């Protein structure tokens, strides 16, 4: 009995280590062409999401398909065009709610916009938000983890930037990311 509990504990620790230590793939910045002067870097948190692919839906701008780089539910896109609009094309979500495991993966129809986002026309950074993907799909509207609380929102964005910074260290984006972190810290 004690052995089993110990094993369960080990599994839990392993679980938190695996999800907590994950980082964005270094490949994400290798072929990045956009800079803070001509594009927008999008990042956020999509709870329960293992995979998410976005496609650019504004037909006045070039087509763009992006497999978001995910790390422990944090996601990061390669820099995108200002004024573009992205929709989720494919999503893979899972949630363990003992004793059930919810698992959903599918292409979303062209009409589904709930998990999409509009990129501002201003270049620089764009924080998508911290969103519960599964709850959003169920509710047919974006369900924020910050629940409209500015302080929570700030903390979520800080967590995201902590993941984004190592991926873009040494690139043209580094100073922009650092400035945003500083700005959020000063808001505290």
């Amino acid at each position, binding site marked *: *009995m004690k052995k*089993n*509990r110990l*094993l*369960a504990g080990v*599994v*839990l620790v*392993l*679980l938190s280590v*695996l*999800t907590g*230590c*994950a*980082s964005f*793939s270094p490949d994400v910045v290798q072929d990045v062409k956009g800079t803070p002067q001509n594009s927008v870097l999008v990042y956020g948190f999509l709870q329960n*999401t*293992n*995979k998410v*692919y976005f*496609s*650019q*839906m*504004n*037909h006045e701008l070039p*087509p*763009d*398909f992006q497999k978001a780089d*995910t*790390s*422990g*539910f944090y996601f990061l896109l390669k820099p995108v065009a200002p004024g573009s*609009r992205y929709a989720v*094309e*494919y999503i*893979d979500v*899972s949630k*363990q709610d*003992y*004793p059930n*495991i919810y*698992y959903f*993966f599918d*292409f979303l*129809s*062209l*009409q589904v*916009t709930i998990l999409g986002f509009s990129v501002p026309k201003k270049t620089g950074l764009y924080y998508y938000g911290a969103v519960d993907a599964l709850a959003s799909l169920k509710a047919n509207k974006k369900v924020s983890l910050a629940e409209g609380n500015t302080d929570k929102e700030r903390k979520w964005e800080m967590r995201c930037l902590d993941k984004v910074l190592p991926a873009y260290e040494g690139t043209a984006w580094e100073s922009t990311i650092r400035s945003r972190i500083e700005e959020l810290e000063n808001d505290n």
Partner: protein
Amino acid sequence: MTTKKIKIMCSIAVLVLYTVFSAAAGEFDYLASSFISNLDDISDVTESPEQHSSVVLPKQSEVMIVGKISAILDEDTQFYGKTRNVQAGKLNTPPVICIDGNAGEPQRQLYSDGEFFFVVYKLPRDRHLQFESFPYYLFADKKTRIILPLYCSIDVPPDVNYVYIGSFTYTVTGDNFTVSKVTSTDEYDQAKEAVTRLSDAGKINLCRVEIKDHDEVSQPRSK
């Protein structure tokens, strides 16, 4: 093994599974990839040639629904094919509509835009059928799916096993693919000709029926 031990082992199994799923979210992406290695492999909308050519005629307790669906889109579909990462070789593939009946035998599900469909459904005791929506796949690809709502119901008259529900044209507008208009035209004669060609079963009694709003049947119905 005691029940308690079994419960604990089950809990551990659940935790391990969860760990695998969670790990798939991060740098161990290959774990998720082991479920689906390539999305292109699962995005094709196809059916086997045998199923596509199969003609299923309704039995006494079934009904064949005959109709036609067309869509007019005002958007540049090529753009959406490219932005949704549809393979370049598929960008000239015509759209398909998927309509699946529920009669026992496997039957054809995929139809072209503007083609008569013939779908067999089991008849419930009250002979009442309701329809919700159909997926319409641009480039026959799941990445570019549009949902076309029908949301209607019909009552199948006694001794009728073939029903023509109409020829529907959907106008789909804007980059959010809103269905702005649905029109229904009566092409009964062409439908009858098409259904008669299906088999040499002789005279087929193809009926028109009143199309009711879906909402009318959301109330519990007496059996």
